[in-house]
């Protein structure tokens, strides 16, 4: 086939290779990032699942119906059950109200129990819960009951033997308000305890695990007919702190992928325009040899198809290898193994390849179909390559790709507007700069003059190049900016000394004593909050029960008895969004998401039942709460005047270093009624995820910046022919190497520097938009970018330019002129 034959000949010449490389770059970058993001997401889901002890959970206030279990089995899902309840646990020495859970053999489906044989030990992992006749108790419960391993205790009517100390119960780490010390028994012993009677308050969980398809099938079946008191839990519905981190990381990686799309688009367009420019005359010559426009079109399109197949194929393969490498290097850093990449995700790379060729290459190539054969006689009859139409098609293609990539329009729109604005600004600033440069140096005969004069002479070409340089530098800076502000924001959010224990059930008289103990051990204690139980029963006079929509999840505010507090100042992790907050305000303050869930606004009146008394209070403020701060936080904050009449328990959170844990626990044994919840594991999990994400985005950043340099290189080379010709001419006219080198340095350096300055400005503006709208972070100023942009621009562009143009200094001018 002629097209293949001609393509192979072209490849030897290098022009097709440039195009092919650009395509490979674009496909592999997008594929690599996409596959990697997918693996990270799966990994996050897996990690979150260990917090849930399953992939999905149906939680209910009533016993799980057989139908629910049956359907799960039909979908080939793994099933486990857990029943949690409060009960007295008795020993010969005493009795203690405990939070007991009874689990089936297969529990947990995800994650593991942490147990120990030493009281207050750090624990080791086991896959399954206690056997029949066994009970595992927390060290605190054991010390309250004064029992140890091998002793017998009673749960209700059933005698059980303590087998281990329970350190961590998977699936319970997230429920921060479980107050009593914990114990776990086998579900097989549950009936014998006779604790669960009709009307008993217990929480039943049906845990499910299996493949996505089965889980989704189950979700579709169960969610429309959830009964009152039933909830559908997914890994994403818990652990808000983790989710925020993951969502932002996802946004970042998507952004990175989007920028990769833009960059490879630029690379494709550059390579294509160079290809087309160099082939104008060639196509005209072939036409004089009798090739019809149809024939030309069929040859070029077949070649494009071959380039597509080869480029996309290699790109996909390379993308796969790249993400595999990133994953491997991450695995060694974090000793975690990411789940395997899925082949089905390769379609995005495929689409990218196709769209890149359609948007960036085909429109240019089509110009070749219509080249007049007369071009061979009149080179002046060359077609115009730069036209509005081409830019519109390219921008449209880029936008479409970004929309496909991000699955939304916000990020792509910000990027396209940015590119557009940058183009406009560059048109103006660049024009003025080049003009000014020319004027400043008029009359001076030096490399400076020649360099600046060339900038002005090839105004349109240089402005276009300035645009490309600026875009690339801007994109690089945006990524660096977002990455550093994300990472520092995460580190700020969960510092190493984030509270890792909650203290509950503290009586007012004990607050000072416990604070003293903590001080003695140099353990920082956060603010103490009084806690009173209450229940929302009315909203604007309407009964709460009537507001719960059948089949939908119960709103947080209405679903249960909740903890209320009073406070005269807002906690540091709270932000007042609307209304007023303070000691003299006679209304309640509500958390943002709880308010949104049932469309509450300032002035709405909420009826609350506390200790048998009803109160009607207007909403006087709405706050946002950083749930990932690990400090006690409340959906509702009431006026002190109301709550101070009720007996309150106090709650606080502390950070205890590992070496202090034992001694603090031992001192706390003097306060048997105080409950402690260790959330250290949860925090560590979040920190691991954050570290993982930070590492990942740094690697991706490095990856993208490397491709940015490649694109810069392509862009410099695209403009080289004309420059080389000029240099060769200058040399034949007797110009010294130094003069030419100097003039090239001035030209490239000036372009690079200007691109850096404009790029920094544009990046600063984009970052403002991205931080505000996409990442929801506080916008910050980035002084580093203003140094990094211009210096990188100057050095990288000059070095690439001088290196690529060095042939003009070494090759005899005659040969140089002839080869062009």
């Amino acid at each position: 086939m002629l097209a293949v034959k001609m393509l192979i000949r072209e490849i030897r010449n290098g022009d097709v290779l440039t195009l092919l490389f650009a395509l490979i770059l674009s496909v592999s970058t997008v594929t690599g990032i996409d596959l990697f993001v997918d693996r990270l997401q799966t990994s996050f889901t897996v990690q979150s699942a260990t917090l849930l002890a399953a992939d999905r959970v149906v939680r209910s206030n009533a016993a799980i119906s057989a139908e629910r279990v049956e359907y799960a089995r039909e979908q080939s899902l793994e099933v486990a059950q857990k029943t949690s309840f409060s009960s007295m646990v008795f020993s010969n020495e005493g009795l203690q109200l405990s939070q007991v859970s009874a689990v089936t053999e297969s529990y947990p489906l995800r994650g593991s129990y942490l147990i120990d044989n030493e009281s207050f030990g750090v624990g080791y992992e086991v896959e399954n819960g206690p056997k029949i006749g066994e009970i595992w108790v927390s060290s605190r419960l054991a010390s309250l009951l004064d029992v140890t391993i091998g002793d017998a205790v009673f749960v209700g009517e059933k005698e059980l033997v303590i087998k281990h100390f329970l350190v961590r119960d998977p699936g319970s780490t997230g429920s921060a308000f479980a107050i009593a010390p914990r114990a776990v028994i086998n579900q097989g012993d549950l009936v014998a305890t006779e604790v669960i009677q009709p009307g008993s308050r217990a929480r039943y969980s049906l845990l499910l695990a299996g493949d996505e398809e089965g889980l989704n099938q189950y979700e579709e079946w169960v969610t429309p007919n959830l009964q009152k008191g039933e909830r559908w839990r997914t890994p994403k519905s818990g652990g808000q702190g983790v989710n925020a981190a993951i969502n932002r990381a996802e946004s970042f990686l998507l952004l990175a992928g989007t920028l990769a799309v833009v960059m490879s688009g630029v690379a494709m367009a550059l390579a294509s325009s160079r290809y087309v420019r160099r082939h104008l005359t060639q196509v005209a010559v072939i036409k004089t040899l009798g090739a019809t426009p149809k024939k030309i079109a069929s040859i070029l399109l077949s070649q494009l198809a071959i380039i597509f197949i080869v480029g996309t194929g290699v790109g996909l393969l390379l993308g796969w290898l790249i993400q595999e490498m990133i994953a491997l290097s991450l695995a060694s850093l974090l000793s975690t193994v990411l789940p395997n990449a899925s082949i089905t995700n390769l379609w995005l790379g495929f689409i990218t390849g196709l769209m890149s060729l359609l948007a960036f290459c085909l429109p240019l190539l089509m110009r070749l179909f219509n080249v007049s054969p007369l071009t061979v006689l009149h080179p002046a009859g060359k077609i115009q390559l730069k036209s509005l139409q081409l830019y519109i098609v390219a921008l449209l293609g880029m936008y479409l790709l970004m929309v496909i990539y991000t699955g939304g329009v916000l990020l792509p729109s910000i990027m396209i507007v940015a590119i557009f604005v940058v183009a406009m600004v560059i048109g103006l600033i660049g024009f003025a700069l080049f003009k000014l440069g020319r004027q400043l140096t008029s009359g001076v005969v030096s490399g400076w003059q020649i360099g600046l004069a060339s900038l002005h002479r090839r105004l349109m070409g240089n402005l276009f190049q300035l645009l490309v340089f600026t875009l690339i530098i801007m994109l690089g800076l945006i990524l660096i900016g977002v990455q550093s502000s994300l990472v520092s924001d995460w580190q700020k959010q969960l510092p190493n000394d984030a509270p890792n224990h909650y203290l509950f059930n503290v009586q007012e008289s004990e607050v000072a004593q416990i604070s003293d103990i903590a001080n003695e051990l140099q353990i920082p204690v956060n603010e103490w909050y009084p806690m009173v139980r209450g229940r929302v029963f009315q909203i604007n006079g309407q009964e709460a029960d009537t507001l719960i929509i059948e089949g939908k999840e119960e709103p947080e505010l209405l679903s249960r008895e909740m903890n209320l507090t009073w406070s005269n100042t807002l906690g540091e992790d709270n932000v007042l969004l609307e209304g007023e907050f303070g000691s003299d305000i006679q209304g309640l303050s509500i958390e943002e998401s709880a308010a949104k869930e049932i469309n509450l606004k300032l002035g709405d009146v909420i009826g609350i039942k506390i200790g048998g008394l009803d109160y009607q209070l207007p909403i006087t403020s709405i706050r946002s709460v950083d749930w990932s701060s690990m400090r006690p936080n409340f959906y509702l904050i009431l006026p002190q005047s109301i709550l101070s009449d009720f007996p309150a328990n106090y709650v606080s959170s502390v950070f205890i270093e590992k070496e202090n844990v034992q001694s603090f626990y031992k001192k706390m044994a003097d306060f048997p009624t105080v409950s402690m919840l260790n959330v250290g594991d949860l925090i560590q999990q979040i920190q691991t995820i954050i570290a993982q994400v930070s590492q990942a985005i740094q690697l991706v950043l490095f990856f993208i910046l490397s491709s940015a340099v490649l694109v810069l290189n392509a862009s410099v080379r695209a403009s080289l022919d004309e420059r080389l010709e000029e240099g060769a001419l200058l040399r034949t006219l007797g110009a010294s190497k130094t003069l030419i080198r100097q003039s090239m340095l001035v030209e490239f350096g000036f372009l690079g520097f200007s691109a850096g300055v404009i790029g920094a400005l544009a990046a600063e503006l984009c970052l403002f938009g991205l931080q505000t709208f996409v990442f929801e972070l506080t916008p910050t100023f980035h002084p580093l970018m203003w140094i990094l942009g211009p210096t990188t621009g100057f050095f990288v562009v000059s070095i690439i330019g001088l290196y690529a143009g060095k042939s003009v200094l070494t090759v005899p001018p005659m040969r140089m002129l002839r080869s062009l």
Partner: protein
Amino acid sequence: MKTNLAIKTQNLTHTVKTAEEELTILNDVSIQITEGESVAIVGASGSGKSTLLGLIAGLDVSSSGDVFLYDHNLSALDEESRADVRGKYVGFVFQSFHLLPSLTALENVMLPGELKGDKEAKQKATEFLNQVGLSHRLQHYPRQLSGGEQQRVAVARAFASTPKVLFADEPTGNLDSDNGKIVTDLLFGLNEKQGTTLVLVTHDQGLAQRCSRQILMSSGRISEPTPLVEE
């Protein structure tokens, strides 16, 4: 139309629009060239020689008037059909050679045959390169050849498609006199051997004088055949 007439133009006029005015490049040109003839189109720069060549070779369409290449009225054909006609009847040699840089000498000469799907393209190309004395340069790329050698490759390429009419635009314009002579000898030798009609545009008086006839162009019109006017 008689078959021994290779080219005929009737009242050929060509104008181009510029920003200010409409420029008439060719004005009412009527010529006839018989098969096997060798014709030199001469005239000062800007007199319309190359435009005339482009029109009669079917590279462009005139604003008005007709061009017949054998039985084909080029003015009435679209680019698709004109390309077909070019492939069948026409060969070109250009001043700046216009070899494809990514192809070797052999591949350049094979190209016309390959475009027609000729299975013997390679063999024929080798033969023609042999005839222009470049059998030792088959695998060289244009950039590895001297100007004279490149033009000889171009000549071989032009004759490889066994054209009925060979158009040459300043074929010796970029060559020194020795190489110019070699190329000229080749053109006329092959012309004679294959019975090709030769139409060339040139400033080279020697080259023009070897042709059987000269057409002198002046300001877009045909003047009487006179000795060449130097620029």
